[in-house]
Each structure stands twice: as structure tokens, then as C-alpha cells.
């Protein structure tokens, strides 16, 4: 049996008007696995991703707890406890959709990549710069030296996502949360980015929580999948047995995906 690294218990997110966005979410992630989180738009996938480390805006109420590597964190308390949340964020990395909006437009790539090395890992600047260059090469950025001194608006969408992956790897994460990392990229780039994530996952052995609405990617990418609908988990299954599901929601998502494939 694989070791459990993250276990979420009874996570709830409410708006200020006491409306549930997420309710009663229980979730386990095992070390080194890829777990997919699927569901239609607005089902709360991204909210759940951010809630796991308490990153939600202060206007949303957050409840529940997570157990991260056998340590218990109360999520509501975590948002105020900067030390614990910094520790968590050092071990859980994120990549998002629309990668270029997650890079600071006023700083060049070198400044943003070295920041993690310098401030979290206390390395000197020249060493941090070398590490950053190495990371950019690792994630397959051509002309890494030149790109180090580029600004976010000078990168293409695919390059920006590679930079985000490099930033995520810089922290040597134990868990990578990938929130629809390819939904804004075209299909060829999408496959490149996904196989890059897969390669890195096999190389460094971190677990991945892969959030998507595309069921063909779910089957390609992960062993287990959790379905979210209107803020609740409605189904959890192995991707291999996805076709045998009795759940009408999952069936409808599958049918939609197949219809789309036939159309293509």
C-alpha cells in the first residue's frame, strides 16, 4: 500500500452570503500518484485546489482540515498562521491555467525564478541564477539564457507555462497541483506540456493533483479520478474502470467527451 501524503477531511467553502461552494469534501492523495479531479465548469475544482492550502480570498469562509505528511492543519487557522502556510507552500506547488497572468509583469523571469532559491532556500544569487538556468533547460525552454532576462509579456503561452513548471519544480515539491494547465494552449503544445509534467513526475517522484474537464486527458494521465459536481464529490474510481460506471453524471461527461471525439 502506498503512503498517503495528503488527506483532506470535510472541506467546506462558503461565500459571505453562506452559500456553499464546496461541501463535505474528503480526499486522499498517495505519494507518487496522479489523481485527477474532473467536473464541469463551476463545479468547484479550482476553488478546491486553492482551498487545500488556504489560498482563497479572505471573503470566502473556509472549513475543514488537511493532514499533510501526518501533520494536521486546520484550514481556517492556516490562513492566519503564516509560518505553517509558508511551510506548506514550500512543499506543495501550483501551476495554473492562463500561466502568463501568474507571472509578475514588472519583473523578468530571472528575478522571479531566483526568488524561490534566494528567499526560501537561502542560496546566493549566482548559484540561484545557475539553478534557474538549469531548470529552464530542464523544462525544455530554448535559449534559456536569453529567456532568463525576458519579461512575461515576451513569452508565448507555452513558454510561460514551462516557466511556471520550472518555478514549481524549484521548490522540490512533494505534491504538484496542476489546475487545468493546458486549457489555454493549442493541442500540440498541450501534449508537450502534459508529457513534460509526466516526465518530471517520474523523475522527481512527486504526486500530482491534476484538475481538468477533459476526460480523455484524465485517462491518459492518471490512475485515479474524482468527480466533482456542484461542490460535492459524486464519484471516485480507477481510470481503467471508468467505462463501467453507473453514475449518470460521469456517464454524461463520458458521452460528451466521446461525442466531441467523433466530431473531430
Amino acid at each position: 500500500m502506498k503512503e498517503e501524503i495528503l488527506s483532506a477531511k470535510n472541506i467546506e467553502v462558503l461565500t459571505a452570503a453562506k452559500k456553499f461552494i464546496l461541501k463535505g469534501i474528503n480526499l486522499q492523495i498517495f505519494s507518487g500518484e496522479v489523481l485527477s479531479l474532473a467536473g464541469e465548469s463551476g463545479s468547484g475544482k479550482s476553488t478546491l485546489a486553492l482551498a487545500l492550502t488556504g489560498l482563497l480570498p479572505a471573503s470566502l469562509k473556509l472549513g475543514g482540515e488537511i493532514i499533510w505528511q501526518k501533520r494536521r492543519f486546520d484550514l481556517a487557522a492556516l490562513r492566519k498562521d503564516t509560518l505553517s502556510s509558508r511551510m506548506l507552500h514550500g512543499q506543495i506547488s501550483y501551476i495554473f491555467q492562463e500561466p502568463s497572468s501568474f507571472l509578475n509583469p514588472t519583473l523578468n523571469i530571472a528575478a522571479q525564478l531566483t526568488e524561490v532559491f534566494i528567499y526560501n532556500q537561502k542560496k546566493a544569487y549566482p548559484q540561484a541564477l545557475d539553478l534557474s538556468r538549469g531548470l529552464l533547460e530542464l523544462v525544455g525552454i530554448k535559449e534559456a539564457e536569453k529567456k532568463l532576462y525576458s519579461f512575461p509579456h515576451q513569452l508565448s503561452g507555452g513558454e510561460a507555462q514551462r516557466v511556471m513548471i520550472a518555478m514549481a519544480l524549484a521548490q522540490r515539491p512533494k505534491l504538484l497541483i496542476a489546475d487545468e494547465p493546458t486549457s489555454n494552449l493549442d493541442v500540440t503544445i498541450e501534449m508537450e506540456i502534459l508529457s513534460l509534467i509526466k516526465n518530471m513526475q517520474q523523475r522527481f517522484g512527486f504526486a500530482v493533483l491534476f484538475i481538468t474537464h477533459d476526460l480523455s486527458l484524465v485517462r491518459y494521465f492518471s490512475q485515479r479520478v474524482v468527480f466533482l459536481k456542484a461542490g460535492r464529490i459524486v464519484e471516485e474510481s480507477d481510470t481503467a474502470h471508468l467505462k463501467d460506471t453507473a453514475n449518470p453524471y460521469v456517464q454524461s461527461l463520458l458521452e460528451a467527451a466521446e461525442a466531441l471525439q467523433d466530431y473531430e
Partner: protein
Amino acid sequence: MKHLFRNPIFLSGFFIIFFIAFVCVFAPFITSYNPNAINLKEALLSPSSRHLLGTDTLGRDLLARLLYGGRVSLAVGFVAVGISVLIGVALGSIAGFYGGVIDEIISRFIDIMLCFPSFFLILSLVALARHPSLYIIMAIIGFTSWMSPARLIRAEILSLRQRNFVIAALSCGLSQRRVIMRHIIPNAWGPVMVNATLSMAVAVLIESSLSFLGLGVQPPQASWGNILLEAKECLGVGWWMSVFPGLAIFFTVLGLNLIGEGIRESLHK
């Protein structure tokens, strides 16, 4: 930055201010007269080749007094705005980032400060300080004008902290202080710069007004305001004594406003 130096409004303002600052800084190379040297034999001369802008009631060269006085006026404007931006950015970003009770306290304090009509507040503070030095005047103007940069940066930060790259920076495990300093404030800088140049014009005007009322820079040290004060006595006989310092103030304020307007325009591109 590229946009900025192609913007005609910014450029014209920039050249006006650059010219004024340049001649004031290099005053000793432009005029050989001592701004404080009294020569009663040459009192109240109209502009001529010997005294380009004429002389005042005590025979001092007006061009020299304008140039050296300009140093004072510009320095007051610059330092006062520096102080107000520093305080404003610090308090505004704390209020905006942390929100809650801290935000309430700071915002209400800003409201309280805004209740006082600022020029009269400055007047009474200066009067309280008796014979204020230049530095005290700078400090007083700075400490009474930090509210608008504070409000501006608070509003900017409220919208910036929901932006994706701030979430990303936090998700990298960076400290909040670091995120504010490195990722939020630089992105809020534009509107603050606009505000700062415009309030520098106001600071120059306030200093001139104070000196004109005899409460600011004390003679014999020249400033544009106290040259005007002396000119008031002989408005009928020595028009040059009031026109030239007036023009100097006018062009400085115009130039600073053009710079501010130019930055504002290029931000919206």
C-alpha cells in the same frame, strides 16, 4: 517607459523641468553674482545686459536670486513629496494588504487628516515652529500630504492582491512582506507616480505661498515666494521683480503637471 518618452505631453513637461532644474543646479556657472550681495548703488535697476533680469530694492541681482531660490523651491517640492509618498505607500499598502481592523484604523486616520484644510494646518504648524528651518518646512509639507498617495495605493493593492501572480507568489511560500514589496507595490507604482508629480507642483506652490506670507524661507536666503514678497512693496516701479519669479513658479507647476498628465496617459495605453 518607451511609451513615456514618445508622449509629447510628458516630453514637454520633462524638458521644462529639466531646464529649470539644470539652470538652478548649475547656477554658479550661469551667473557670477552672489544672490545675497547687497549693492545699494545698483538698487532697482531694470533688466539690462549687466543684470539680465534687473536688480531688487537692495541691489541684488534678480537672476542670481531666482536661480539660487529655485534650488530651495525645487528641493522643498522634491523632499516633501518624497516624505509624503514614503508614508503614504507604507500606510496604504499595510491597510490594503492586511485589511480588517488594521485597514479600518488607517483609513479612518486618513479621513481624520483629510478633514483639516491642509494649507491652514500647515500654516499653524509652521507658526508653531516659530522660525522654521528649511528641513522643518519640508517635513511639515510632507507630513500633511501623505493621505492621497495612501488612499491611492490602498485601492490599487485591494485589486492587485486578488490578481493571479500574487496568488502564485504566495503559493511559492514567499513571506507576505516579500510579496508586498516585490510583487504588489511595483505594480501599483504608476498611479502613485502620477499623484507624486502633481503633488510636487502643489508642494512648490505651498512653499511659495508660505514664503510669500513671510512664514517660509527666511531672508536673506532667497526663495521664489519671498522674492515675490519683497516685490509686492514696489509693484509699480519694479515690474521685473514680480513677473520673473511669478513666471518661474508658473512654469515649474506647468511642467510638473504636464509630466503627471503624460505619465497618466501612457499608463492607459
